[in-house]
């Protein structure tokens, strides 16, 4: 299925892009992140990131569905 991925902050810098689509053959945010971490040398552990699916904060264990957008969010540093 097709997943749309959004990148922010350090992850966008390391990926060299702010978004991309990927075909995946599983429904696990953890597995997707492991692949992205490998592709782009992301420094964060999955458990230290928040997960937003379709622009809503979601449990790390949420099952992805075809057409979902997902973002892995580093610790926030606004203000």
């Amino acid at each position, binding site marked *: 299925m097709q997943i749309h991925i959004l990148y*922010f902050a350090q992850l966008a810098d390391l990926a060299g892009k702010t978004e991309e689509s990927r075909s995946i053959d599983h429904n696990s945010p953890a597995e997707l992140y492991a692949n992205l971490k490998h592709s782009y040398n992301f420094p964060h552990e999955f458990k230290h990131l928040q997960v937003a699916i379709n622009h809503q904060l979601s449990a790390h264990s949420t099952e992805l569905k075809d057409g979902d957008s997902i973002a892995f969010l580093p610790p*926030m*540093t*606004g203000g």
Partner: protein
Amino acid sequence: MNFHLTDQAIEPTSLRRKLLSLSAGAYCSYEGWVRNHNEGKVVKELHYSGYPQLAPSIANTILKEAKEKFHIEDAAVVHRTGALTTGDIAVWVGVTAHHRGDTFLACRYIIDNVKHRLPIWKKEIYTDDTQAWIESNHCGCADPKNLEHPHQTHP
């Protein structure tokens, strides 16, 4: 909706005006300003990057929590995005209430939670052109027991 992200200069005068009320006796506001230094390095510019499709729902959750926890009349938050230079306002919070105690506590609650929960990330660009994504607001300020702690790590 009492929240917005903006890539334009934050104008406290007009934001304050929107909270004016004849029934509120107390108004507290907070502003985070871009300092010319951080942990010994001279800051030339900050870059705030946000997640605009997610930030409003989180900001509104924080504002709703503040209204549930404290007896306030109204509250608002604005956060800047994009490139900021020293002296610019990064974030503004305003709160009205009948009584001053509630304005201080709610304003503090909102800014603490905005810093930790609003999906915005800060990159510092130094005068030697090096830059760094700030790792975390690691002061634990949102914890009420730290309210009286004299020194947090970040403004």
